[in-house]
């Protein structure tokens, strides 16, 4: 019947072939021409998991680890699997209520979705972790996950070691993409300085995930994975027992202690007060602890050993004597008749000693720290007849000071060291409009005026005197594990700096004798250790601060520098106790304890009460209370301006905050002057009462 339609079979064949051709073209387009789908499939299914290497361990001189790695536990939850969990039991162990529990579960759900684990509570206390571990079977969907953290087994050396923190956007940008979000980076101390050595090499593991983002295995059986390479360890010069002692002695005080080995430049101990337990920045409460330390005006996070700039006071005098001796303006028999003050210039320079003969010669003058003598010596140095003007004399003096490692950064292996200040001609030109003479800056001779040094610089200058002219840049790290030629970081610390070796040894001997007398029968008899010849110098430096717009005179800084033993120097110590009074009161005993501990490995029993007394003493300067009040109240005001939350500002208000209505709501764009006025008016109305607290 339909045989006539035979040709139509060909049309049907053509329809079939035509549609298949369209399909093949589209397949070719998808599979061959468009390459993007492979990447899309990879993004879908492959999760590159970064494997973090263990950071390097830091050892002290006796191979005791002072910065180590340990495992802490996070409690993680997979929200969808946690439905049948014993909520009350968990809340009871963690000490939270069910509302908080629900809040955290919702947070986890939002953060990582219902099928993937999210952190429920991080960095559990060991006790809590143990309790959870026992009861974990009651809580399906919850698990304890290891997390490596840094630990400081001796609870010491916080300022030296520094800490690690997550890389912020600035670090990531500066590293040129090396660091990623979530990486940990050394943020301070040795952790930051030796970051490249300690961090090791990140590894990556490619994991497969399914359509609900659950990890289901390794991609290609791990063929593309790279293992993490552990960070290299550091061996340091630090003597952890000495370090602990130094920290104990400086705690409760503002100041710093530096002890170093003059032969190598290796730092044995470095403490800054007030100090803190380094483990407080790794554990569960690190955020809280960090915040409270940042907000503390006594700045416990500040390493005053490298960042504290102090007038050296009398501790400068041995250096002044050496410069003058080398310049030939005095000799060991030079003396001056001091009756308690120096009257050579218009202003009177007071001296603590009155009795005749304490400044009869150089040795006695050092031993008794005669201000008149050293004022005279300084003027002689500047007004050196060998040069034609006192300008050249001051330039020469500045050069000497720089040679002693003062006035510039020493180059320690810690970040953010300060250079402090050795004044030069430009500074005086600026201040005195080029009309100045040796009398203008006569107090430089007793380590005052514009001269400032850091405790590290003080210790280093002692090392130069002890070594009779040379030094190694002070540093902590003795060696790096598996050190290669590429570790250029250590090069500069192994180089001998023969800065003042042109000064003859007998000149050094004169000064060293004077310094030995300081301990034997001079100002620092308290520092004497039988059987050890200590060369030392005390210092009592005037200092001022600005508070409430007024310059106020603070109690003198107590300073002490020393090295011992004189014949074969093994340790140099510099101690600063801010606002402690006489050098011999606080700083000298601290220095002496450190020397004794280091050289004899223990402290004599009869001195232990002193150790105890000093370490327990709290001589934080009183003006800090006022400063803290001021800072807190300004912060509270700013907080109030931002959030309109009056909780914090109330206690800074007159009448305990009852007059909140008086405060006009700040209008957007209020001028700064107006705001300042407001602050003064409202926040400092209680000045009289606070002054009572700080008489």
């Amino acid at each position: 019947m339909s045989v006539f339609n035979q040709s139509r079979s060909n049309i049907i064949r053509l329809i079939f072939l035509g549609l298949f051709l369209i399909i093949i073209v589209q397949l070719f387009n998808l599979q061959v021409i468009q390459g993007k789908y492979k990447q899309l499939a990879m993004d879908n299914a492959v999760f590159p998991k970064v494997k973090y290497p263990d950071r390097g361990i830091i050892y002290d001189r006796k191979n005791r680890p002072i910065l180590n790695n340990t495992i802490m536990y996070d409690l993680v939850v997979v929200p969808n699997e946690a439905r049948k969990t014993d909520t009350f039991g968990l809340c009871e162990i963690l000490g939270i209520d069910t509302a908080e529990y629900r809040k955290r579960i919702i947070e986890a759900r939002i953060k990582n979705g219902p099928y993937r684990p999210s952190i429920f509570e991080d960095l559990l206390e060991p006790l809590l972790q143990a309790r959870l571990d026992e009861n974990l079977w009651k809580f399906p969907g919850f698990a304890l996950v290891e997390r490596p953290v840094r630990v400081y087994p001796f609870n010491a050396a916080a300022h030296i070691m520094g800490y690690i923190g997550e890389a912020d956007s600035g670090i990531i940008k500066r590293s040129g993409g090396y660091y990623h979000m979530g990486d940990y980076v050394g943020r301070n101390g040795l952790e930051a300085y030796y970051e490249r050595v300690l961090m090791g090499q990140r590894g990556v593991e490619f994991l497969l995930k399914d359509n609900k983002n659950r990890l289901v295995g390794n991609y290609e059986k791990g063929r593309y994975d790279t293992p993490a390479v552990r960070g290299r360890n550091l061996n340091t010069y630090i003597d952890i027992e000495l370090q602990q002692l130094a920290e104990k002695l400086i705690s409760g005080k503002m100041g710093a202690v530096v002890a170093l080995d003059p032969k190598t430049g290796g730092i044995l101990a470095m403490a800054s007060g007030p100090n803190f337990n380094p483990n407080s920045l790794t554990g569960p409460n690190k955020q809280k602890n960090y915040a409270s330390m940042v907000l503390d005006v006594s700045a416990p996070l500040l390493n005053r050993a490298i960042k504290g700039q102090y007038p050296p006071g009398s501790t400068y005098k041995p250096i002044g004597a050496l410069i003058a001796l080398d310049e030939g303006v005095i000799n060991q028999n030079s003396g001056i008749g001091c009756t308690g003050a120096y009257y050579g210039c218009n202003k009177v320079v007071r001296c603590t000693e009155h009795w005749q003969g304490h400044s009869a010669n150089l040795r006695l003058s050092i031993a008794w720290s005669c201000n008149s003598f050293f004022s005279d010596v300084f003027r002689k140095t500047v007004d050196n007849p060998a040069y034609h003007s006192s300008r050249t004399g001051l330039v020469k003096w500045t050069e000497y000071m720089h040679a002693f490692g003062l006035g510039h950064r020493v180059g320690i292996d810690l970040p953010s060291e300060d250079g402090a200040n050795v004044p030069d001609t430009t500074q005086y030109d600026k201040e005195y409009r080029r009309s100045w003479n040796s009398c203008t800056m006569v107090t430089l001779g007793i380590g005052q005026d514009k001269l400032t040094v850091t405790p590290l610089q003080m210790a280093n200058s002692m090392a130069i005197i002890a070594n009779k002219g040379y030094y190694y840049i002070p540093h902590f790290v003795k060696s790096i594990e598996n050190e290669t030629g590429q570790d250029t970081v250590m090069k500069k610390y192994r180089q001998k700096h023969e800065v003042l070796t042109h000064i003859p040894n007998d000149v050094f001997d004169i000064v060293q004798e004077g310094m030995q007398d300081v301990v034997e029968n001079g100002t620092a008899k308290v520092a004497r250790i039988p059987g050890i010849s200590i060369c030392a110098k005390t210092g009592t430096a005037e200092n001022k601060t600005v508070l409430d717009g007024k310059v106020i005179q603070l109690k003198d800084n107590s300073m002490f520098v020393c090295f011992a033993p004189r014949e074969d120097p093994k340790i140099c110590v510099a101690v600063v106790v801010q606002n402690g009074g006489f050098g011999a009161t606080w700083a000298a005993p601290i220095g002496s304890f450190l020397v004794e501990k280091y050289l004899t490995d223990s402290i004599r029993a009869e001195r232990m009460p002193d150790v105890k007394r000093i370490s327990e003493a709290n001589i934080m300067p009183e003006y800090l209370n006022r400063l803290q009040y001021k800072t807190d109240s300004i912060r509270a005001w700013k907080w109030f301006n931002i959030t309109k939350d009056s909780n914090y500002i109330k206690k800074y208000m007159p009448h305990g905050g009852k007059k909140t209505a008086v405060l006009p709501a700040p209008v957007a764009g209020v001028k700064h002057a107006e705001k300042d006025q407001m602050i003064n008016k409202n926040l400092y109305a209680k000045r009289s009462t606070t002054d009572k607290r700080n008489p």
Partner: protein
Amino acid sequence: MNNQRNPTISKGVDSTLIWLYLLLVAIGLMSIFSVTYHEGDDVLRSFLNFKTNYSKQLIFFAASLLIGLFILLTDSKFFTATANIWYAFGILLMLLVFPFHTNIKGTESIIKLGGFNLQPAELMKLFVCLALAKYLSRVETDFNKTSSHLMAAGILVLPALITIAQHETGLALVFFAFFLVMFREGLPAGYLVIGFSLAVLVVATLLVDKNVLAIVLTAIAIVAIYFGWRITRQRRELIIIVAVVWASCVGVQRFAVPFIFTHVLKGYQVERIFSLIGRENPYAKLNTVEGDEPVAVKKDTDYNVRQSKIAIGSGGFIGRGFLKGTQTRFDFVPEQSTDFIFCTIGEGFGFLGSLAVLGIYIFLLLRIVNIAERQRSVFSRCYAYGVASVFFFHIAINICMTIGLAPVIGIPLPFISYGGTSLITFTTMLFILIRLDADRQMVLR
């Protein structure tokens, strides 16, 4: 009668078709295996415990072979004789679905018989194929008459309408594939031209702004009248014809399409169509009355096709290798053992593998057309064309939807997709064809 006493059933059986069939089922089993298998599974045990998809498919395959064997043992006349009875039986089954259906995944077309889900619409493909062949091969049927056209169309439109009523629009479309059979048997080309024009009009309605389209249609009508005026003398009739055509076009564009999209099709189907052509769904607001969230639904439908395209595209030229495809192994592609099984082939074996499978299919289809053309009996020829049409429709639409050329319609890929009903139906269709072909010297009515 001779055949019944024939000692071998293999006489006249087209072995090529059987080999192609076995090859496709093997590819299907392998694909389902690669979707279901997880590293470390005990393959032998899971094949034997018949709990995984691939082992179940193996059972279905065995059942299909058994049915195929029975069919080969049956007399060809049985099929011509019982074609209409089967059709009536099928319609009855479909009607029975309404009171007895089980609600699975939003469809209302399945009856649960013990542990077996029976979908009468699937079986109906076979019955329509038989009934249509029977009708066209009747001596008294004169296929030049419009009334026979309507009658033939009625045979396939009836089950299609019932299927639409069961909310299985995709399955209903399959029945329209039989128009190819009618075309072969002499359906005037005008029908196809009209159908094609209608399709163009519907697509244009979706793509072009409705007022612009109305203006274009009016312009075409005016041009037609202008040129027709010169050619023909029956000017009044010309104007009437053009006016009627114009009115129906505008009617389709203005009223019919919006009506279908808001009332006949379900919200998700409309979304699928619009996500295919990459447009915002203008009917979304109307659909929200039923409680569908247009944005969420769109995202969902988008997800299927996007993941399926990623899977196939990631295969590249030579593929990622057997069991290496991450898209299909980790359930990124939904429905991947059934409707989206082609992704497994595309991802695992790439362009070459896909080409090979397509080659097997086109070889199968052309082979069936060749077999159809060598039949002496009209019944066998019509039946063969029916089988070819149904296979073609399934293959083309299924693959097109996985590569983003057609909207997502849940129809399986013949012999490869997982599923008992579809495998058994397709096997039955193919083996009846083989049986009929074996008796191609006979004239069956």
